[in-house]
């Protein structure tokens, strides 16, 4: 992997730091007029998720990390691993529970997810921004109540619990924003 100097640090660049892959979020050049230059770099450890700031001397270098984001189709889980497939090559990757942890409430078979590979192994999985999931349990729908603005909890096929309007019933398919966990509307009616 190539080395990157502080002046190449840009948001999105993946580098190795203390043995872990990290993503650069922000890089600020700091220099007293007559003094030496520094780069105050905000980064995220891609393994632990920790976000913090580290100061480098300008001109220091870090090794690039073999990290790639790929769109893949979610296939199935055997309870221990979750299987994803690259659409062009049909190559399959198995992700462990830690990698899918954040995506789990939204993971539906055949949906396309963003899988981050580190040295070829899934490090994390991001679900699509919007998913369509069926309600498997909620209080009975109040027919025609589309105006009162009230809501109630609904459990979806994945186990996620989302607040939905009162008129929805079990068996209906809804659209959810996975970034906020908020109900967006009935499926196909966006």
């Amino acid at each position, binding site marked *: 992997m190539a080395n990157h100097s502080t*002046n190449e640090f840009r948001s999105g660049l993946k580098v190795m730091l203390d043995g872990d892959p990290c993503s650069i979020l922000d890089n*600020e*050049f*700091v*220099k*007293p*007029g*007559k*003094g*030496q*230059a*520094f780069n*105050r770099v905000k980064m995220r450890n891609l393994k632990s998720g920790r976000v*913090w*700031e*580290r*100061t*480098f*001397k*300008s001109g*220091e270098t870090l090794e690039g990390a073999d990290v790639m984001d790929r769109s893949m189709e979610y296939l199935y889980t055997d309870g221990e691993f979750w299987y994803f497939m690259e659409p062009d090559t049909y190559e399959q990757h198995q992700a462990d529970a830690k990698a899918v942890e954040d995506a789990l409430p939204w993971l539906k078979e055949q949906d396309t997810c963003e899988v981050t590979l580190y040295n070829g192994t899934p490090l994390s999985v991001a679900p699509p921004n919007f998913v369509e999931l069926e309600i498997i349990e909620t209080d009975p729908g109040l027919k025609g109540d589309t105006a009162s603005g009230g809501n109630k909890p609904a459990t979806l096929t994945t186990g996620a619990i989302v607040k939905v309007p009162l008129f929805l019933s079990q068996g209906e398919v809804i659209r959810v924003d996975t970034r906020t966990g908020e109900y967006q509307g009935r499926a196909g009616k966006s």
Partner: protein
Amino acid sequence: MDWRPGAEMPTLRARAALLATVREFFAARTVLEVETPLLCCDTVTEPAVASYAITGEPRRFLQTSPEYAMKRLLAAGSGPIFQISRAFRAGEAGPRHNPEFSLLEWYRPEFDHNQLMSEVAELVTACLGRPSYSKISYRELFREVLNIDPFTADVSQLRSVAGNSLDVSFDSADRDLWLDLLLSHLIEPALVERGVCFVYDYPPSQAALARLGYSDGVEVGHRFELYVDGMELANGYFELTDARQQRLRFSEDNKRRLQAGLPILPLDERLLSALQSGLPECSGVALGLDRLLMCQLGKADIREVLAFDWTRC
């Protein structure tokens, strides 16, 4: 292709008005406006300041400030002078830095640094309408904010103060590196609430082109910096006039360049000859006009006050 300016038109009008205010300020004080070359055969030797070199024979450098040429004018008997020019510093790009920027530099024969600080404060009042200011020595500032004496603390003490609140990727035996780190990361944020504030009397190792003196029982460089709301705006000196001393400092710079793996630079013999022939006792200061405009307009990023910043040209 994004061809549009990064600054809004009202900002550019404010810039023009600011330049007019500055020229009025000096006209009223009969300080002569001068112009000196931007492309010179020599450049600063300071290791922390990088120049752009222009290919050709002989090689020339875009000036990082017009200081050397202006001092030659002073030595030739110009009297008080000011200049508004572009200055260039390689690699300095960020929210407060653009590699090409506008600099106001002026020199006052017979002024010491205290008199010049007063005049800088008057200019700030003329441009920003903020007449109240404070002064604090570099030593007192470190004592107040970090409870450490920057003149006597050793590297391990400075490192441990830094380590208490910062995650630092490097180690170093260079005291000045740690002082610069503490200043830029921990002291500058504390200067925000001090408004218009002068910091003066720097450690001798950071005197640059300022003369040395004694204060509070230690040797200090008679250098000052102006901060406005935590942003460094100007750097000034009670100027060193001793040619021999100056040659020594340039040579020291080159030694540090060598240690840092930077190219050695020839000394500016024309400047040294001018000092030899006699630079009048004077003080001088350089003030970043883009940053002054940022203060005036309350902009947080230098790109908002430049018609076309580094990424647009």
